[in-house]
């Protein structure tokens, strides 16, 4: 079947995946992709050289403005996401762990949140395709979560020498289920150490998958979508968007619409799409749009280890060692925990030292005298009831409503955060770290925000069905982290891509 004329709102990893699959499977359809932000030149040698020599990144201005959201005292938006062609994958770390089977049954297991309308096993074939799409490196022999002997598309990245001390500590403490971090680094990765701006395309970003050369595909950057216009309760007519080049509002008819923005912007678009058919916003008759706000804080413990005879120092710009020992069903009630050894923490910047006047011999002495270590991770956080986002008064730079965030951390999450931070500190102490401990109990961040348009079996419990189609509306889908019924302990992007593939393949089959 053909989907006809399709609008995709958002050019991040979900939108790029949907577009790519539809273009391959549905030659008769015409796709228009709308992106509020601009195109950013990626994989450019001069821009890379500027990043190496000055630290400046070409997408810095695509971050949120600090005034774009209110209520950010305990929920960080700035720096978490990007408004640009390619979305937040332009700056992501590329960590690609799968969710685990129990993650799809949070409600059944804990009485919190909601179960997913499908299982880990249902999603497994799409996880395999998502790993191929993102060019994930990993150890296929590990079976936590189950892989059924499915290899990763890119061979595993060997553990760094600095990981060795952490591995010893994990072994001494009887902590199992650790190994190579699955991460989106293709074989073209040249370990350049500048992953925030890769000169060779070794780290996947969604701009790679946006097929501007297809005749049936059109990318409209600098074109924020302000509203979905409804013909009836069940059918959207099309979109209203702003052409930022002219400042004019435009209206256009579409047969099907995929809302693929970030969590917050996707929910905000539905809330902004009020009509006589949907008084509280599209898909919001039962009041779930913008609700159930959940997100990850980055929990981090760092410290100094005395002596460094091997001159251990991180030589890569990404972690290689992950641990899922605490990401297990028995911890689900309080919030499972996932962490990595991030060798970048405590990095000794030789160049900066030289520029500050430190002589090379003194640098040798300082490097031999000790080194920094750090562990960092995420837990499945539970927000207090009522945590949500709302449309705020005023407009952001795209002419879209600003965001108001209402967020309170639940008591059980506050308590569990401290427990996981203590676990990381203990691991570091066993590894040999004994001084200058710093414990960072961060705030939740916009980049891992979920549940604002959650999937459910029925409209009474959520916003979209298992195909990410809005309940009671036939031609609008939301494919975004916003549809995840719960947060889990790990990064959401791989699962988002798996869900996007599932949706696109089912629709274009």
């Amino acid at each position, binding site marked *: 079947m053909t989907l006809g004329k399709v609008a995709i709102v958002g050019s991040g990893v979900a939108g790029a995946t949907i577009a790519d699959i539809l273009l391959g499977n549905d030659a008769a359809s015409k796709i228009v992709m709308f992106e509020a932000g601009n195109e950013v030149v990626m994989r450019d040698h*001069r821009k890379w050289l500027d990043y190496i020599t000055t630290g400046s990144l070409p997408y810095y201005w695509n971050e949120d403005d600090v005034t774009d959201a209110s209520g950010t005292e305990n929920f960080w938006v700035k720096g978490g996401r990007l408004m640009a062609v390619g979305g937040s994958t332009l700056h992501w770390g590329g960590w690609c762990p799968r969710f685990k089977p129990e993650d799809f049954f949070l409600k059944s297991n804990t009485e919190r949140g909601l179960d997913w309308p499908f299982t880990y096993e249902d999603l497994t074939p799409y996880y395999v395709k998502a790993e191929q799409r993102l060019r994930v490196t990993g150890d296929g022999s590990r079976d936590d979560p189950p892989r059924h002997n499915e290899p990763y598309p*890119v061979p595993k*990245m060997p553990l760094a020498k600095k990981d060795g001390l952490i591995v010893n500590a994990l072994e001494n403490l009887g902590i199992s289920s650790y190994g190579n971090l699955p991460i989106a680094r293709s074989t073209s990765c*040249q*370990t*350049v150490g500048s992953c925030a701006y890769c000169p060779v395309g070794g780290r996947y970003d969604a701009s790679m998958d946006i097929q501007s050369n297809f005749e049936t595909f059109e990318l409209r950057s600098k074109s924020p979508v302000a509203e979905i216009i409804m013909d009836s309760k069940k059918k959207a007519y099309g979109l209203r968007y702003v052409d930022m080049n002219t400042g004019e509002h435009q209206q256009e008819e579409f047969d099907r619409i995929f809302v693929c923005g970030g969590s917050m912007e996707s929910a905000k678009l539905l809330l902004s799409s009020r009509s006589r058919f949907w008084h509280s916003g599209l898909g919001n008759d039962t009041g779930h749009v913008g609700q159930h706000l959940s997100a990850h804080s980055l929990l981090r413990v760092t410290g100094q280890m005395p002596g460094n005879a091997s001159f251990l120092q991180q*030589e*890569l710009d990404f972690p290689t060692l992950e641990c899922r020992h605490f990401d297990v069903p028995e911890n689900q009630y309080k919030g499972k925990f996932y962490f990595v050894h991030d060798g970048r923490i405590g990095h000794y910047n030789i*160049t900066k030292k030289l520029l500050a006047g430190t002589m*090379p011999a003194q640098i040798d002495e300082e490097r031999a005298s000790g080194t920094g270590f750090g562990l960092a991770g995420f837990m499945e956080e539970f927000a207090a009831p009522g945590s949500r986002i709302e449309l705020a008064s005023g407009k952001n730079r795209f002419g879209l409503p600003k965001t108001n965030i209402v967020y309170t951390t639940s008591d059980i999450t506050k308590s569990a955060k401290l427990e996981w931070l203590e676990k990381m500190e203990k691991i570091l102490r066993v590894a040999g770290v004994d001084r200058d401990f710093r414990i960072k109990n961060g705030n939740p961040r916009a980049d891992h925000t979920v549940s604002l348009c959650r999937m459910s079996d029925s409209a009474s419990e959520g916003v979209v069905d298992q195909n990410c189609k809005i309940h009671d509306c036939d031609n609008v889908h939301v494919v975004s982290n916003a549809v995840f019924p719960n947060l889990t302990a790990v990064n959401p992007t791989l699962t988002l891509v798996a869900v996007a593939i599932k949706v696109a393949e089912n629709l274009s089959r």
Partner: protein
Amino acid sequence: MNEEKTRAFPSIVDRRTFVGGATAFFTFSAYAGTSINVTNELSFWLQSEIDEPNWVANPDVTGELPQQFLKILTEFADFVSRRWEIRDQFPDFANLLNSDFFSYKTTERDSYLTEYVKCTYMIDTLAKHTNTRDEAHEILAFWDVEKEFSIKSRLGRFRKFFRDEVAYFLLSQGGFRRFAELKNYKGYHGGSFTEIPPPYRVIDG
């Protein structure tokens, strides 16, 4: 590329004023190693603010840096790389700097061409009043090295737009090998991690 702008070479901003009006203030009381003393007048000249933007001057003026300027800047880079003991890591120092650093920085926007030309005038002008060119290099690179100078000052601009950037470039292009055990470093094309051995130290390596 805008031909007219490319040909319009940056002017000498303040050389005449400096040489004519301030010759007397180059008296070095003493310096050895990184311990450099300069006269109050020279200190004033280095730190005084000039009428320039906070970003590189004339970023739209692109073009290859002429050989005589390349030579002056390369000599400075050579001096600091010897001080940092990384010079031996570069068998083809001048060509590396020219092709992989100066050329990219001056032929594309935002172009550093004008800023670099001004740097050469600073080096040349100082060198006329020191015993050796390396004394001028020493002052520009390391005088009061722990202090952060204003981007509006002569010395602040020289260090931010040239000294610091060339340092990050040189360390990333192999200078890091001077420092024990490192096999890879930010900005170094180490090679694929799928190779054996991989381009970084591993647990069993």
